[in-house]
């Protein structure tokens, strides 16, 4: 069984197929602008990616378990908005219920969990297509932001919800610490706990997982709820960064979320991929965006450059990973 050792190393590397891409981007960035490699810019990149990275974390877990969630992007705006509206007076766009400001964060997370629970319930109990359920939920949940706010931006927010997304701890934005911590927890959970491993089993072959005694429904439900909570937290961090909740917060993120996860090696067919890989995917996307902004590529042509880079990253991840993608 000596053959084991090199195998492990290879498998480890497979998570990191994007590392060369990241290095390349760092070099390109350094040549693009002297500012690029400064601590300030790197910290900016990390902060800018912090909220979306939580969505990637959530989506990676959901994809690994063989499901799909498009509605995460709507939760980003709606969960904190709901909580805020419960707290702020009617004049500031709220319901005037006067819920204390300190409860806003727990309430937002709860709202996220509730959205995830609805998704999970519909998909698991009714055995509906996850893609379409969460597509409908994407529309509905965004409607739950548009409806009560009537499209207005919520500007007057309780201090508590601003704090996390705008403060700095030990020189780095708090949101970066939070995202980092959650990624570490996610990686450990998926790599080293029974619950985490059962996601892979379910995504790989749900019937076999059931036969092996895994409570498939319960685990999947848990994954959707966790996903909703992470999306709500992403919304909280983003709210702090932007200082307001616009009716478009989070809208359009989901494609980038999928791109990051898949480039990072997570399979759309379930059962494959790692949290660490997904993280490298987020970093690639963040670096590309930053370099494009620094270079000042014309807005009209930016999509072409951007899409092209995604394709190249995808190819590198394919070649380095060595396996066909699904």
């Amino acid at each position: 069984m000596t053959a084991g050792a090199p195998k492990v190393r290879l498998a480890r590397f497979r998570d990191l197929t994007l590392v060369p891409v990241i290095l390349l981007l760092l070099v390109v960035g350094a040549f693009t602008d002297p500012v690029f490699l400064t601590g300030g810019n790197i910290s900016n990149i990390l902060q800018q990616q912090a909220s979306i990275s939580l969505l990637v974390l959530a989506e990676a877990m959901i994809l690994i378990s063989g499901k799909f969630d498009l509605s995460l992007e709507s939760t980003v705006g709606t969960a904190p908005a709901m909580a805020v509206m419960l707290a702020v007076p009617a004049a500031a766009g709220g319901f005037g219920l006067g819920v204390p400001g300190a409860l806003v964060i727990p309430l937002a997370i709860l709202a996220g969990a509730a959205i995830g629970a609805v998704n999970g319930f519909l998909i698991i109990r009714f055995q509906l297509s996850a893609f379409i359920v969460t597509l409908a939920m994407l529309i509905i949940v965004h409607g739950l932001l548009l409806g009560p706010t009537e499209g207005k931006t919520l500007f007057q927010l309780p201090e508590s919800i601003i704090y996390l997304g705008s403060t700095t701890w030990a020189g780095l934005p708090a949101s970066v610490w939070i995202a980092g911590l959650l990624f570490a927890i996610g990686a450990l959970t998926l790599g080293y706990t029974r619950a985490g491993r059962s996601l892979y089993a379910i995504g790989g072959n749900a019937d076999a997982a059931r036969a092996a005694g895994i409570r498939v429904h319960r685990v999947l439900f848990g994954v959707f709820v966790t996903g909703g909570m992470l999306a709500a937290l992403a919304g909280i961090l983003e709210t702090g960064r932007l200082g307001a909740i616009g009716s478009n917060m989070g809208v359009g993120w989901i494609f980038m979320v999928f791109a990051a996860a898949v480039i990072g090696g997570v399979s759309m067919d379930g059962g494959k991929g790692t949290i660490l890989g997904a993280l490298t995917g987020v970093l690639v996307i963040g670096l590309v965006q930053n370099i494009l902004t620094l270079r000042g590529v014309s807005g009209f042509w930016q999509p072409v450059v951007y899409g092209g880079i995604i394709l190249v990253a995808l190819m590198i991840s394919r070649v380095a990973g060595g396996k066909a993608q699904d």
Partner: protein
Amino acid sequence: STNSGGAAAGGAGGKVGIDHPRADSDFWNSYIKYADQMATELKVGKLNPTNSQNDVSKLVSNVQTLIGQGAGAIVMAPQDTGAIATTLQQLENKKIPVVSVDTRPDKGKVFMVVRADNRAYGTKACEFLGEKLGGKGKVVQLQGALGSINGRDRSEAFLECMKSKFPGITVFSEPTEWEGSKAASMLQTRLEQNPDIKGVYMHAGGVHLAPTLQVLKTKGLLAPPADPKHVFVVSNDGIPQEFEAIRKGDIDATVSQPADLYARYALFYAKAALEGKTFKPGPTDHDSTIIELPNGLEDQLPAPLVTKDNVDDQKLWGNQVK
């Protein structure tokens, strides 16, 4: 196949069909509210308003439905000024007059265009920033979506004005797709790269205001106008929060896009069209001018630049919103 547009001539029978362009921005939200209010005030009979969710293809479908329901006049705000041509042609054939709000269709007959000039917004913002900066330095323009006519008009006018009047100013244009998140990231990165940026023009206060202030705050650049660290910020829209920010000295000016007047005169002209009235180019009774277009008339409503000096003017719509 559906009923013909005879209503326009007869007047009394027709109702006004209104299509709202989108439901997800502060400005249009106010406009939608005003439209209801003004319809009551001006006693205009209207059909259930439709909403085309920023999609011209939906607008076309909605207009067809409104025609089917017997609309005698249509108020619309096509966010794509070209792709509405065929529909305007059909409406003309059916003799249904059209009032276009906010945008000027490229082709096809319109009874009246009700708008403030988006190019003028860009120019006003440029002139304000140019003077404040003394014709030199760096400014950032947070653009809307490049696919949108208004975003493009503001952007082009701003750039042209800067080029011709203030060649000493460097402009960075950031396409934000009307997204606060993109705006924050791009502004943050640009400030990292050029800490000496001294001016910002935001295309949409609703989405850009809070993120811009937040970025300036974390960079420690939110200083009073007298402070040399101050970054001059001009916004666009005229929502109450911008006025608040002007009063606090956080931003310096905004172009007030008159949501109330848009709604009032859209319905006013639609009603007039139903009643068979006509208009001629020239000054109006409400501080504006009607100009002649190849395909109709345009009432160019005033879009004042609001600064600390006139921010408390009660006539500004942003001061009337509760």
